[in-house]
């Protein structure tokens, strides 16, 4: 296939902060976006914050200055309702000015409660209806393999989302076609909307399902930065060798970082107002550091006054 292949981004774009501060910043931004909207997908956005922090701390080769370049790595947030966390990441990397998030969910905004690739730079595909994203990612991974530029494709899916049959259609295709450049990450926060995933529809053992569909499976702690990085490195090695696609079955906690709501399906959507927001920001704030120096323009971190 004759496709122009520009030289690829030498390294992944990086956040303006240390890893820990980056994750805390994502969480803080999620809370502030919810404050704008008067409502937020706290549980699902906070459970995947550390996964997003890992992916966008140099692993994904993306270029905020040239967001649409063909040979970039791609992320499909199939559980699109967690996009407030992804917006935080993309803003920090410089895909768009963070202040645009003031319009989050407001009339005419580009930043809805599900991500839109036509409106927001850095969003690789629009999502919102669960179950679609892995198929999209398969298409991207097939294209990357055709181009031969080594670009990787990541899809983040929810554990409840695994109930959708289309996930297994895509998993079956990727397994049978040995799409080594495809990485699926299952955010196993053990809840969906109606309750815990165990109560609603128990899909454990999750790893066995993926293995039976021909994937290389790793089960990791989805909040442990080192564990995530190590798993990403092993995926990279597997991709270089060519072989099965990889899935990270990541154990996480819904609402991670806000003790009052952790692990609760009730906080799929909700609102932390006034004093509750203040408490939550404080709990995060204790862990927020100043921006690291390895970026030209360190930007101020949101302060807590006023909440």
């Amino acid at each position: 296939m004759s496709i122009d292949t520009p030289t690829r981004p030498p390294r992944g774009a990086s956040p303006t902060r240390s890893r820990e501060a980056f994750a805390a910043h994502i969480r803080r931004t999620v809370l502030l976006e919810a404050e704008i909207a008067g409502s937020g997908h706290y549980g699902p956005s906070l459970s995947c914050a550390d996964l997003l922090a890992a992916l966008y701390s140099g692993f994904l080769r993306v270029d905020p200055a040239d967001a649409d370049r063909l040979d970039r790595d791609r992320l499909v947030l199939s559980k699109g309702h967690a996009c407030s966390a992804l917006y935080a990441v993309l803003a920090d990397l410089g895909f768009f000015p963070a202040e645009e998030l003031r319009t989050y969910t407001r009339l005419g905004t580009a930043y809805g409660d599900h991500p839109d690739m036509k409106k927001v730079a850095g969003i690789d595909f629009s999502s919102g209806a669960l179950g679609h994203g892995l198929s999209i990612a398969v298409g991207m991974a097939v294209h990357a393999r055709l181009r031969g530029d080594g670009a990787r494709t990541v899809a983040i899916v929810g554990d409840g989302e695994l109930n959708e049959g289309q996930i297994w259609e895509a998993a079956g295709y990727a397994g049978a076609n040995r799409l080594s450049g495809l990485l699926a990450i299952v955010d196993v926060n053990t809840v969906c909307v109606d309750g815990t995933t165990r109560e609603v529809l128990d899909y454990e053992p999750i790893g066995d399902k993926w293995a039976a569909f021909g994937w290389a499976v790793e089960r990791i702690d989805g909040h442990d930065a080192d564990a995530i990085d190590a798993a990403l490195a092993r995926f990279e090695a597997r991709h270089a060798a060519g072989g099965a696609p990889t899935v990270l079955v990541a154990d996480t906690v819904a609402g991670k970082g806000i003790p009052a709501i952790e692990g609760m399906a009730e906080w799929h959507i909700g609102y932390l107002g006034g004093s509750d927001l203040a408490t939550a920001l404080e709990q995060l704030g204790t862990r927020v550091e100043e921006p690291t120096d390895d970026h030209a323009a360190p930007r101020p971190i949101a302060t807590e006054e006023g909440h």
Partner: protein
Amino acid sequence: MPLERRTTVLTDPSSYDHEGRAGYPTRSIGSILADLADEDPRIMAGSADLTWSTFLADFPARHPDRFIQAGIAERNLLGIAAGLASCGAVPYMSTFSAFASMQSLDVIRNDHAYTNLPVRTIGTHTGISMGYFGSSHHAIEDIGALRSIPNLTVVSPADLVATEALIRGTVDLPGPVYFRLGRGASGPDVYETTSEVVFGEPTVVRRGSDILVVASGITVHAARDAADALRADGRLDVTVVDLHTIRPFPAQAVADLAAQHDAVVVVEDHVVDGGLGTSVLTALADLDVGVPAYRHGLHDFAIFGPPTHLYRYYGLDAEGIATVVERVSDRAPRDRTIPLWEEADRSRVLAEQQAADALRKPEITFA
């Protein structure tokens, strides 16, 4: 599925969680169906991980063994329903309309409609009522998707009273029924008693003589308010009819009503191609009624915003509907492909709202 939801240690009165603390309506589709199930052993219900969001939660609380929790698998939910119905059950399966109609259309078509089984699909949060959840959650093509399927009944209640009336009015239909519901319990009321809504017969909500406004579901209350405003100001005398039964379409009744007016305006929370107005136009054409009919609805995927803002933006609130009805009365353009709610109207609403938004919560900075 446990009905008890945990409550959180929160201190601020403005905080709420998904359903627990936000409060849950005492009367809802779940309690309507649970009452019905008390009387009728055929009744079952189910959802695809949206039991709370679609206001069905009273059903599993009261009839746990007659409830199907399918997880996030709408096609399977509706397929299971067909299997249940083939054994004599009358299952009511609820999810958001976007996932009930478009994602599972062939299940409805093959397994409910072709087999003509009494499955009831409840699609909630229709049209643009999901607001800033965005296009994936807007169900603005569902009437179009469903309209061609033989044997399928489609009803669109304007409020909870109408929902109960239409559930009870269709419970013994041998074939499948699709319920197109608005946001569930949260819309303004239109009716006081279930006797006002009879399956198959349009309900005249306001009686006038100048212009016939046709509405259905979530737009009925706004159409009614528009009529009241136009009448109060002495501007126009408008009839509002609630076309809650979309299929089979009551063509003769609509044609008869239309023939008594100067023009028809169809208000729809749906794209105009394939929506309610399409049925109205074809009915008037087929029955040779020469009254001009205007379709007032969506023409493209919607933008994002809070639901009430979106309805205002698209001229689907009372003010917008009143404006469009007046324009029909004033201009009566012969080319009715041109929308009467214009780009300029939308820009005005957007600018006003953005100006108001700019003043909100100045303390929040994202950098």
